């Protein structure tokens, strides 16, 4: 039987917060840029119906904004790998996810001009607290 991998040692809380904040910030920038890219491209289902799967892939891969977004998402990915190497999954993943939800709601309203109404703010806060509670 394969032995369970060791649980990471306890790290400085400020260092843990910095790791989680780095994941959240890079993830938010990446997701906002990616969302902006996909909105500029248009409905992928319609593009695929019109120009096939290759046409849809080409539409995505020829959008510079998409690559800017993916670059930040790659940064977020390696930040998450680094954080998972030092923190428990039950802390790092939910904490980063819940923080990202709130920062994304703010960024979507500011930069993507989405109508983040009371319903969506409520949902963001509920999901944020819910993800936090799941880690306990």
């Amino acid at each position: 039987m394969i032995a369970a991998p060791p649980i990471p040692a306890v790290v400085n809380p400020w260092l843990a917060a910095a790791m989680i904040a780095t994941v959240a910030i890079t993830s938010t920038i990446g997701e906002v840029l990616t969302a902006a890219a996909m909105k500029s491209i248009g409905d992928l289902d319609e593009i695929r119906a019109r120009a096939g799967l290759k046409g849809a892939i080409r539409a995505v891969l020829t959008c510079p904004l998409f690559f800017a977004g993916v670059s930040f998402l790659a940064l977020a990915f390696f930040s998450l790998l680094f954080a998972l190497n030092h923190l428990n999954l039950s802390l790092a993943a939910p904490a980063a996810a819940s923080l990202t939800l709130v920062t994304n709601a703010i960024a979507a309203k500011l930069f993507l001009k989405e109508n983040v109404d009371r319903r969506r703010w409520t949902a963001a806060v509920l999901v944020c607290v819910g993800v936090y509670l799941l880690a306990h």
Partner: protein
Amino acid sequence: MSHSKLKPSQYLVLALVAICAPLGDSCLARGMRELPSISLDHPAALIAAVFHPWIAAGIALLIGFFACYLTALSWADLTYVLPTTAFGYVIIALLSHFWLQEYISPYRWAGILLITLGVGFVAQGPSLTEKTPDMHDSPPDTVPDPVPDSVGDRR
């Protein structure tokens, strides 16, 4: 075109977004725990980590997640799609309880309830709200722009 009601295929895409992300994260965590501690002095070790089987499986799942996520973002708001990813944690928690017979504390049940409520709130609203010049469903009382913007100028 109305964006407030999603088609069954679009709900399937959102379901895949919810399932693939937490499964991918779990595989990454499992793989990273099997590796020795990585310091910032040796960042190349992070690149080498992607060839670990568990991490490679996690990356494959996250690529599937990303494809579905991009598709969802092309017809829905970021603030509509993101709660769906958090709903994946609920799916994992329920699977671990009913399939693996794991204990779920009252805190976790409260978390599951809150996330479900939050996703329910968002799902009842429209999937796309931001105003872009290429919106197909412009109000009938407005005069359409005689020179429509090109695809690259939509933002």
